[in-house]
């Protein structure tokens, strides 16, 4: 099957600045695909390249198998939902929705029929004559989606469309977006810096940092089997312990850290002597008696969040650690000031090369 969107060694440079470096990937038809990364990581540039506003300096973008070189954004079967939505203030809601059909030469009465159908889809029936500045943030959001869907794109591109919304509405819109995607069945490419958004909605996620795609996979894979230090630290909460690989045997390895030698899964088959980082999820750590665990620390506080309690500790070298304690066990957490030991199962900790990692 032809992929909906394929990037083939795409690099994008502005002068001496490299925004995207050698990106290659295939997105399947009907997939909900996200690009996740901090601001400035190149994800928006990549989206603008797919929609045709930026020409790649190297490499090829294919949409539905067709090479997109030299094809302008107004000729591509994509529709983009802008971060600020970019609704046309000079047109009514209905005129906004069917603008793409108007420029394709569709007659007025036919257009209005489509507008009515789409207004029903986004639950704004009969509101086509309103002006854009009469709508709430959520309604604008839905108008922007309807406007993009009206042109029946093969791929819908979304550039952090929820960022302008109130937190509660944002969570509500996640399920609404997912639902719309299920109904129209086209490919969605979603850009966000919010891992919660990416993890809840996406079939697959590409994590980006400084222009480089770090890893592509579903949420579970990224969380449980990160391939780079950046992915391990960016997706989900984690404890980071830096050091050098001391011994590497089979699946496991031992890292010499400030806390002493600690073992973990050697996911990238590092040789002994190489700089490494050991990542342990807060839920993988358990509190035990001082001196009993692999790591020692002093409790400085705890935050109760209902089903889980986050306990913060300071290790002997001054580094901070977090432990998640579930349900009833939280009652047994000692008071701040108490010395404790920490244990974990080595196969739940992961050792990754520290090379290229710059985020503290």
């Amino acid at each position, binding site marked *: 099957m032809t992929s909906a969107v394929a990037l083939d060694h795409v690099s994008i440079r*502005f002068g001496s600045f490299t925004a995207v470096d050698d990106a290659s990937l295939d997105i399947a038809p009907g997939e909900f695909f996200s690009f996740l990364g901090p601001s400035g990581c190149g994800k928006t540039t990549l989206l603008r390249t797919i929609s045709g506003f930026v020409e790649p300096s190297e490499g090829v973008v294919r949409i539905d198998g067709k090479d997109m070189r030299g094809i302008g954004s107004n000729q591509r079967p994509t529709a983009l939902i802008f971060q600020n939505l970019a609704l046309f203030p000079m047109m009514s809601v209905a005129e906004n929705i069917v603008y793409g059909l108007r420029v394709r030469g569709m007659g007025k009465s036919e257009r209005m029929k489509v507008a009515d159908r789409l207004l029903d889809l986004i639950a704004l029936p009969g509101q086509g004559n309103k002006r854009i500045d009469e709508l709430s943030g959520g309604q604008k959001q839905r108008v922007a989606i309807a406007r993009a869907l009206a042109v029946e794109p093969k791929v819908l591109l979304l550039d952090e469309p929820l960022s302008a919304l109130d937190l509660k509405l944002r969570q509500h819109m996640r399920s609404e977006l997912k639902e719309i995607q299920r109904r129209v069945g086209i490919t969605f490419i979603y850009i966000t810096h919010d891992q919660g958004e990416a993890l809840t909605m996406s079939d697959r996620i590409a994590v980006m940092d400084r222009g480089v795609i770090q890893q592509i996979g579903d949420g579970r894979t990224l969380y449980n089997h990160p391939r780079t230090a950046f992915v391990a630290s960016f997706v989900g909460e984690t404890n980071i312990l830096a050091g050098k690989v001391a011994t590497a045997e089979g699946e496991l390895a031992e890292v010499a850290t400030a806390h002493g030698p600690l073992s973990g899964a050697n996911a990238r088959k590092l040789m002994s002597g190489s700089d490494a980082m050991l990542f342990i999820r807060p839920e993988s750590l358990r509190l035990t008696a001082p001196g009993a665990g692999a790591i020692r620390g002093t409790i400085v506080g705890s935050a109760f969040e209902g089903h889980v309690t986050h306990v913060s500790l300071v290790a002997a070298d001054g580094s901070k650690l977090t432990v998640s304690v579930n349900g009833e066990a939280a009652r047994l957490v000692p008071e701040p000031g108490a010395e404790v030991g920490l244990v974990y199962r080595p196969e739940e900790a992961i050792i990754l090369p520290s090379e290229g990692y710059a985020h503290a």
Partner: protein
Amino acid sequence: MHSSIGQVVIYVIPAMVLAWFGWLAWRDRRDPANAGRQGFVARNGWPVAGFLVIAVGFWTIFMIVLPLFSMIDLSFRPKLPPPQWGGPKDFYTLDNYRYFLFGSTTSTAAWNVTHLTAFALTILTSIAITALDFVICYPIAYYMAKVARPNRLRLMMLMLIAPYWVNEILRAFAFRILFSSQGIINNVLMASGLIDQPVDFLAADVALYAGLAYAYLLMMMFALYNALDTLDGNLIEAARDLGAPWWHIHAFIAIPHAKPGIASGSTLVFMLTAGSLAAPLVLGGPRSLWFTPIVYDRFYQAFNWQQGAAYALILLVACVVFVLGVLRLFKLGLAEIAR
């Protein structure tokens, strides 16, 4: 030098400037750093790109640059009947400028006193009127920008603009009614017994100067107001708290802040006053001297266009010198005042 050379130069200069623009654009397109960016035509689409180039090209070349160049060219040519233009006698000459200085194209024995005095008087009076307008406007502009409440400000704005809906000539006419020998000022003065004969304000140029000061007041007012409006009120408060006397606040805080406004207001008022034609025609007495009517007469009384062009160029140079002088004085760039 024969005039045909000038004709070539006039067209070659804009062509070279256009070529420079084109070269800059072409070099940019070839620069690999700009590979992802679109060119002018791609960015606008050819219908809009065509519209932009034709509209801006016609405007800048045929409405701004070439007319000015032709005027400069003409000012250096001898007066010849049209059939002889470009003919064997059409050589460049300084005759027209010589006439301005000496009142003759051949003799340099005597100065052209009338024209020189008119020119000097026009420039000096324009400078004086510019300064006067600044003095008149500054307190009002400061009041509007820093003291007046919004409602009063709106009212004052409206009242400032309203008189300028009447056109320039009629405004001058109003002053003529005011100052004429049977006008209201003379009537009042005579009725009060201060004078027994009407004063000829027109001949004494009082009406002219009052009318000129009035004519372009608005330009100075808005330039000053816009500049003072951006002055931070806290700065004035702070200075006052520190015990600065009122004149100190104006001399060292408000006026330095308003520099760009003063410069742009002065430039406009000077240019409009020195170039004004309506007020001198309507308010000038029979012996009043002003430069623009003299320029006008070169064209439509003496029918000596070459000389008229030279006179116009002299006026233009005076204005440019004034603008540059103001910029120099206030240490500003052109973009800061031309708004």
